[in-house]
């Protein structure tokens, strides 16, 4: 398909069906009323709006849906899902697209979200609970900003709000849960 003034778009006609299978939402219900885009708190930061994302998914415009930074500015604030007159859970659709991008390892700038998610899930798998110090430290290290928010971190430690050592709960059960889930997904 070609939009005036733009290069040819790649079309994947199975895209909408893949979204439906992953999250149960039917993107064809969207009639482009723009209510989701108008209430979205991070729309000014996005390359395209949530409404446009729905259109890309309807048309199977896979690169526009997957490679723009739109989904990576979604905060899962649920405003769009709460307001959609067609009762589409747009935030759930966004999650489905995010998961496809991460699973297929599509090269896009996720604003460190992919790294953040991976660190979080790994800590969880072995510790059962979140270890904020470890998470923040590793995130800053791996994203090349080792001193980000350091003064604030020190203040929080002084106030006893960040624990230096992790709390570990049910590590073996958690590892088994993660591996059973992985097997199911295969």
């Amino acid at each position: 398909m070609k939009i005036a003034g733009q290069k040819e778009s790649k079309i994947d006609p199975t895209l909408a069906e893949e979204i439906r299978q992953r999250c149960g939402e039917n993107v064809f219900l969207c009639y482009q009323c723009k209510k989701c885009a108008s209430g979205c708190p991070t729309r000014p930061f996005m390359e395209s709006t949530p409404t446009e994302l729905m259109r890309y998914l309807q048309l199977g415009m896979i690169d526009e849906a997957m490679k723009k930074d739109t989904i990576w500015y979604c905060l899962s604030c649920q405003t769009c899902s709460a307001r959609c007159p067609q009762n589409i859970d747009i935030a759930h659709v966004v999650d489905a697209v995010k998961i496809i991008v991460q699973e297929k390892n599509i090269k896009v700038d996720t604003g460190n979200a992919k790294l953040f998610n991976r660190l979080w899930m790994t800590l969880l798998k072995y510790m059962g609970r979140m270890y904020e110090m470890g998470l923040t430290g590793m995130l800053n290290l791996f994203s090349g900003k080792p001193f980000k928010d350091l003064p604030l971190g020190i203040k929080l430690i002084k106030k006893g709000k960040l624990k230096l050592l992790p709390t570990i709960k049910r590590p073996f059960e958690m590892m088994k849960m993660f591996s059973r889930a992985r097997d199911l997904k295969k």
Partner: protein
Amino acid sequence: MKLSYYPGCSLHSTGAEYDASTRKVCEKLGIELVEIEDWVCCGSTPAHQCDELMSIALPAKNMALAREQSGLGEICAPCASCYSRLKFAQERLTDDHLRRQVEHVIDARYPDDIKVLHMLEVISEKVGADAVKEKVVKTLDSIKVACYYGCLITRPPKVTAREDFENPTDMEALIEALGAETVDWNMKTFCCGAAFALTRTEVVVDLTGKILADAHAVGADVIAVGCPLCHVNLDTRQQQINEKLGTNFNIPIFYFTQLMGLAMGIGPKDLGIHKHITEAESFLKERALI
């Protein structure tokens, strides 16, 4: 009244004062909280944006633990994100295929008859503003409060079963029962940027800046919250916001349970007021509340 208690990771770290004040207030109100033993993280936002199955299995695991350990029918979750993940899991687990998968992952039966309540719901629905009023020993009539709900206490309605999700008022009723004045404002359900607290700080500064500006514009002295992530963002980023926007915000951010505790005569230390980054103790002294 006896409820299972799921504090979640934040209440054991950055939201320690929410945990402390919740426990103290419940004690005063005769609510017994039975913490789920060795609960695990609900997965929060990272789980639902990278692993759909685990994002449902983790909350289900905690509900199964609650049922096995205490047999209680209700779980109180003070963190808006934990609350939302538990409620989302319940909504999705009405699908039999997914339920079977999740039961296989957690190797336990998923109890489908548990009621999940946010701490605000526990107080407003199960106790009521009138009963709270009877416990007030020190009226908070010297402060003006902006009640901030954020996203997940009220949204999405298919999960929270709330009709008033655009303009909730139960926190106002509660805060007014403490003698304080509440304000009418625009940003009570606007997102604070929680999910980006560590990754896209510039977005957080932008969004929290808007929230603080609106509270300031309508003359609120303090903001009351019911979520540890909202608290961190609003409480810790004010200096950065001032630097960026050239403003002069210095608005103390309290958990609604801390305000309740103060009015009920619980000491500020016990409520963890000293743990805030935006100075709250001197403000309360100034208003003769401590």
